[in-house]
C-alpha cells in the first residue's frame, strides 16, 4: 500500500523564530518518504479549517516496530498552520502519506556530474530537507542556497550548513534586508556563482533543486535553462485532498494541459512547467 491514512502521535512542537515551527510526529506503519514527498495533516479533532494541509516531509527517522518519526517544518500563515502550531505533545493527529512523486532525477547521468545546487526560499527549505540528507548520505556534493526576507526566515540554517559542508559544499545565505548572509536575493547569489567562475564551478552544477515561492522557482528555472542545467522544483499549490481526487491542484504544463501537483508532483522537472 503506497500511502497510509494513519493517526500520528505528536512528540514535539518546537517554536522557531518568526512563527516558524518544527513538528515531530510518530506514525505507526508509515513508509519512509522519498525526498520531496509530502503528507496531509491536521490538528487533533480539528473541525476548522475543514481541509488538511500539505506539508513536505522535512525529516524522518525509523522509530522501531515499523513506526516512523517524521518532522514537519512550517510557518504560521493561516488557519491551518495556526492549528498545527497549536498542537501539543501527546495529541493524536491524522496523517495521510507519504504522497506524490518526489525528486526523481538524482540518479541520472546529468545529475551525477559535478555538484548540485539546492535553492530554498524561506520555508521552502522544508521541501529540501530530505534531499539534502540523501545527498549527504550518498556523499554527493552540494551547495545550499538559502534565501529569506530577514535572518529569522532562515530556520534550520545550521542543519543545512552541516549537511552541505559534510559533502565539501557550502551554505550560502541571503536576506533581502541584509540581516544575515549576503544582502540580496538568493537567485542573485546562484547567478553569481554560475557566472563568476568560482573554481569549483568549473564543472558547473550538474543539477539544481528548488523549493520556495513561485517567483523564486520561476527565476531558478530561467537561470537553469540559461546555463543548460537540468533541475527539479518541489511545487506548492492550493490542495484539497492531496491524493488526486479533487483535481484542485492543477499545474500548467508546457506540453499542454494540466498535471496534478499532488500526484504528478509535487516535484516537477523545471523545464516541463509553464512558469
Amino acid at each position, binding site marked *: 500500500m*503506497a*500511502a497510509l491514512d494513519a493517526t500520528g502521535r505528536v512528540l514535539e512542537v518546537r517554536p522557531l523564530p518568526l512563527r516558524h515551527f518544527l513538528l515531530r510526529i510518530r506514525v505507526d506503519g508509515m513508509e519512509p518518504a522519498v525526498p520531496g514527498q509530502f503528507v496531509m495533516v491536521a490538528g487533533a479533532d480539528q473541525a476548522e479549517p475543514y*481541509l488538511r494541509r500539505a506539508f513536505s516531509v522535512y525529516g524522518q527517522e525509523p522509530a522501531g516496530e515499523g513506526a516512523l518519526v517524521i518532522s514537519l517544518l512550517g510557518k504560521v500563515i493561516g488557519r491551518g498552520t495556526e492549528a498545527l502550531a497549536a498542537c501539543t505533545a501527546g495529541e493524536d493527529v491524522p496523517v495521510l502519506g507519504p504522497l506524490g512523486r518526489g525528486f526523481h532525477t538524482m540518479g541520472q547521468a546529468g545529475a551525477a556530474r559535478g555538484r548540485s545546487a539546492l535553492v530554498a526560499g524561506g520555508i521552502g527549505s522544508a521541501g529540501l530537507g530530505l534531499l539534502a540528507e540523501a545527498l549527504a548520505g550518498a556523499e554527493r556534493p552540494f551547495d545550499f542556497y538559502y534565501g529569506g526576507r530577514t535572518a529569522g526566515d532562515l530556520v534550520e540554517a545550521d542543519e543545512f550548513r552541516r549537511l552541505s559542508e559534510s559533502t565539501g559544499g557550502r551554505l550560502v545565505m541571503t536576506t533581502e534586508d541584509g540581516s544575515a548572509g549576503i544582502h540580496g536575493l538568493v537567485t542573485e547569489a546562484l547567478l553569481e556563482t554560475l557566472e563568476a567562475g568560482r573554481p569549483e564551478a568549473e564543472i558547473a552544477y550538474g543539477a539544481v533543486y528548488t523549493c520556495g515561492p513561485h517567483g523564486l522557482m520561476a527565476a531558478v528555472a530561467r537561470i537553469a535553462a540559461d546555463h543548460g542545467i537540468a533541475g527539479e522544483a518541489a511545487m506548492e499549490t492550493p490542495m*484539497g*485532498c492531496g491524493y*488526486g*481526487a479533487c483535481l484542485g491542484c*492543477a499545474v*500548467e504544463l508546457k506540453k499542454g*494541459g494540466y498535471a496534478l501537483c499532488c500526484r504528478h508532483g509535487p516535484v516537477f522537472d523545471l523545464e516541463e512547467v509553464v512558469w
Partner: protein
Amino acid sequence: MTRESGGSGPDLSTQVGPLELQNPILTASGTFGYGLEFAERADLHRLGGLVTKGLSLEPLAGNPPVRIAETRGGMLNSIGLQNIGVDRFLDDVLPGLVGLPPKVIVNLFGYDQDDYVRLAERVDPHAGVAAVELNVSCPNVSKGGIEFGHDPEILCGLVRRVRSATGKPVVVKLSPNVTEPAALGQAASAGGADILSAVNTFVGMAIDTNARRPVLSTVRGGLSGPAIKPLALRIVWDVAREVDLPVIGIGGVETVDDVLEFLLAGASAVQVGTALFRDPRTAERLVDGLRDRLQTEGVASVRSLVGAAARQE
C-alpha cells in the same frame, strides 16, 4: 471485511428506484475520481455505490488554477470538468470496477443535447454500469449542462432523449441554484428520469484580501462541504415530497447524523463528497457508523427510515 449475511444486524440495503444498493452510502461525482484511484486508500467493496467524475465525449483539460478555495465549513471548486473522456473510462477504468459490490453510476455531461444522447449510447452496452447520472447543473463551465438544469422544458426534453438512448436507469442531478429545484425535478420526472440526486454545488465566490482579487480563476465556483448541508436538506425535503421519484441526497454529508437527516427527509441514499477530501475513509466510516447506530436504536432496516420525518409532520 465479510458482510454478515442472515445475521441479526440491521439491514443496510436500500432500494433507489430500480437500483438495489448494499447500503445507502455512495461517493459523489468529482470527489472519488473514477473509483480505482481510491483502491489503495479506501475499501471500495464496502460502498453502496460510486459515482464517477463527470465524463464528456472528449477528454477535457479543465480550468486554469486557482481551482479551489477553502471557506468556513467547506470549499469552493472550479475544476472545469477535467476528465479523461468517456471512451477511456469505459476501456481502461470500468473493467477494474466490474464485479465489485458497489453500483457504478456514470456521471455524464455535454454541451448540447446530442452530446448527452451520444454519451448515453456509448455507456449503454456496458453491463458494469448500473445507471447514468446526468450533470445538468455544473456551475463551472459556461455551457456544460447548466442551462439544461435551469429550464424545466429544456430539461424535460433532454431527459426524454437520453431516456430513449439507454435502458440504464437515468439519474438527474439537480441544481440548487434555481428558485424551485422541485419544479426541475418534476420536469425530469416528466421526461422519464428514474431517480433524482440533489443537490449539486451552490454557486459562490471568495476574494483574496491581500491580492484584492477573486481567489478562483473563474471568479465563481461551487460551494460544497458541511456549510451547505441545511440548504441541501431543505431541497431534498421539498423534492421528496413534491416529486414522485426516489431521491439521493447530496450536500455536506460527513457524519451518521447527516446520513440519517437526509434519509428521514426522504432520500433513499446519500452521496458523500467533500468529506472524502478531509478523510478518504469517510464513506466506510459512515457504513460502519450507520450499522452501529441502527443496531443501538433497534432499527431493523434503513428502508424504514426513508421519509420518516415527513410522515411525522
